[in-house]
């Protein structure tokens, strides 16, 4: 079952490289996405057995992130099929500098997209830290060609930065793996493989100095990939230059994969009773991300970069939540789902806007509500959701995290205040951008085609899900989140 989840997209990806016809390739993409999502859904009902010496197993945290990934990928692949049929085999004029450019071959795009899904799936099911590392590096490598889909020099610059910064970060995470291997001794002083269950069993025997050194390197390595400030520098570039559907997957799924990597580390520290050490790091990185993203969101002129910085902000919120113990962790996990849904929706909508207005500049986009009522309305809904306005899901999760901070008392009130203040600043910054884009009269130069069903349906579904999560968190999901949160927060 687990093998099927990982290998199906990998094989389909290799197949896509070989297939001759575009229609066939798109069929493979959507078909694989549907089967993958169906398999994931089955996993909720029947828990798959661990394989490969328990190196691959689907635990609660893995299931949560697998579901997010699989669901997003399904919607994104539907959007991508529509997107590709528009983009296929054309020469394009660069919207910023007027250069001619073409796109990467579609076979490469779809093949990499499917390999990307395979790598992300492997992240969620890996219990062995080495395998986890291989998978996370795999996501970087599979997604680099996707960012360089539009072949011009800005996307090239973004790809290079993404590749180099993430690869270096992740190489440090590999070192952390070796450190963890050294730290992993049982009570009789023998080394054992760095598999999560074994590490939890022997958590109290682990060698503390090596464990702490490993932890710091993990935070540097996976933190880079997750986009936590000050290691986020690749993120705005990659997100703004990639095709919108890829931005949606990067924000909604890849950042979560790195987050999951760090959650595994947190689980060890909780098991060893040393969570105070990691908590301080989580909170420091979280606050830094919030503050830095708030600074860059104010006065941002490019709406895709705006969304990218919003991702940095939300990763900060996740980190902050984990740093606040079990209650905060519950909020953080809920927020991870909410953020994935909203951010994917916003990036897909940004793709629609880009296709219509041919500009990424906020001040050049006017009158969305008049020009494309559905996209415009969803864009406004997405804005309300991402800034944490009721009744959408993020309100609930942000509120949970805030409450967790206030419940801890004393010193944490300061953190809660910073949290609220940055959220306020970001609300103002995003409101200026989004409201300006939605209102007013559209200029005549916009391309007057109606958005196709392919481009409207996925964001619509995502929006509906966020709204639903805001009104009512379903029982099985709440139980799952509680179960994971208890492994992340320790005894309260």
């Amino acid at each position, binding site marked *: 079952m687990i093998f099927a989840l990982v290998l199906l997209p990998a094989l389909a990806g290799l197949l896509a490289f070989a297939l001759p016809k575009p229609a066939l390739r798109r069929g493979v993409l959507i078909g694989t996405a549907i089967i993958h999502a169906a398999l994931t859904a089955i996993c909720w009902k029947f828990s798959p057995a661990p394989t490969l010496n328990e190196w691959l197993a689907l635990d609660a945290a893995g299931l949560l992130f697998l579901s997010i990934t699989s669901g997003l990928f399904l919607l994104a692949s539907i959007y991508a099929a529509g997107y590709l049929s528009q983009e296929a085999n054309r020469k394009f004029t660069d919207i910023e500098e007027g250069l001619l450019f073409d796109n990467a071959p579609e076979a490469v795009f779809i093949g990499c997209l499917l390999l990307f899904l395979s790598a992300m799936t492997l992240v969620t099911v890996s219990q062995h830290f*080495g395998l986890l590392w291989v998978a996370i590096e795999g996501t970087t490598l599979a997604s680099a060609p996707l960012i360089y889909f539009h072949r011009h020099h800005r996307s090239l*610059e973004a790809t290079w*930065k993404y590749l180099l910064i993430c*690869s*270096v970060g992740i190489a440090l995470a590999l070192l952390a793996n070796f450190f963890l*291997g050294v730290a992993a001794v049982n009570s009789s002083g023998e080394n054992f493989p760095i598999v999560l269950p074994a590490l939890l069993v022997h958590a109290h025997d682990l060698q503390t100095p090596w464990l702490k050194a490993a932890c710091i390197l993990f935070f540097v390595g996976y933190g880079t990939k997750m986009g936590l400030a000050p290691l986020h520098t690749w993120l705005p570039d990659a997100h703004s230059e990639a095709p919108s559907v890829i931005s949606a997957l990067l924000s909604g799924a890849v950042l979560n994969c790195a987050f999951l990597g760090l959650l595994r580390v947190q689980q060890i520290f909780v098991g060893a009773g040393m969570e105070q050490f990691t908590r301080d790091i989580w909170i420091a990185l979280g606050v830094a991300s919030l503050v830095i993203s708030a600074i860059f969101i104010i006065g941002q002129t490019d709406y895709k970069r705006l969304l990218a910085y919003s991702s940095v902000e939300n990763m900060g919120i996740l980190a902050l939540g984990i740093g606040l113990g079990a209650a905060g962790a519950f909020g953080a996990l809920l927020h991870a789902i909410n953020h994935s849904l909203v951010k994917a929706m916003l990036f897909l909508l940004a793709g629609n806007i880009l296709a219509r207005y041919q500009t990424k500049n906020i001040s050049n986009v006017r009158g969305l509500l008049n020009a494309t009522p559905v996209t415009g309305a969803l864009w406004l809904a997405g804005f309300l959701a991402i800034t944490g306005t009721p009744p959408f899901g993020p309100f609930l999760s942000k509120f949970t995290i805030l409450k967790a901070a206030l419940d801890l008392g004393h010193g944490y009130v300061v953190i809660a205040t910073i949290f609220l203040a940055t959220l306020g600043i970001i609300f103002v910054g995003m409101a200026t951008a989004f409201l300006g884009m939605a209102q007013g009269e559209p200029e005549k130069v916009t391309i007057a085609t109606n958005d196709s069903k392919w481009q409207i349906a996925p964001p619509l579904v995502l929006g509906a899900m966020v709204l639903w999560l805001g009104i009512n968190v379903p029982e099985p999901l709440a139980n799952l989140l509680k179960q994971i949160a208890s492994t992340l927060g320790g005894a309260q």
Partner: protein
Amino acid sequence: MIFTKLILVLLVLTNLKLLGSSRVGSSIRVVAAQGIALGLLPVLGHAHELSIRFGLLAAGTIAIKGIVFPWFLFRAVREAEVTREIEPYVGYVASLISGVAILAVSFWMCMRLPMPASLASSWLAPIAIFSIFAGLFLIISRKRALSQVLGFLVLENGVYTFGVGLAPQSSLLVEAGVLLDVFVAVFVMGITMFHINREFDHINTEQMSQLKD
């Protein structure tokens, strides 16, 4: 024992050479030599318990790092038709001195960690960490994309050194995965480099500063 030490010294020397060298071609050869030396490290370091795992690992490492990468990178250089590094952000003599300082810091750091008994040599951990820092230094201080890739390889070699010497219980599957990842990483970087060359007419990353806030 003495072989391990010699390889480790070779590692430091090659890193210092890279820090102080301006020629791209010789830098590629130095990195290749480093790759081969590292491939031999597990074989010579664990000679008493030689197994298929170490044999495969050594063969794979030497093939990829000693033969495939240099060939691939030389191709990239030929495409770019430039062999001299452009003046880096940090000069070569300054880089060399920084390298020695980094070496000192690495030794100091490793004195503060309790070393496990499985360690092949007491030099292994500090030299591995030195390689990692040296690689980072190369990536930060050099402007050309190719030099940055070499820096990444040096960094990766450092991590690998640590892995070979310190984590005896690691498995073939994971090591093969790591090797595969590095291979694909360099492959993708090489292709990107080719595109950078085509797009900007050179592989100098200094010009890539359009995306910023």
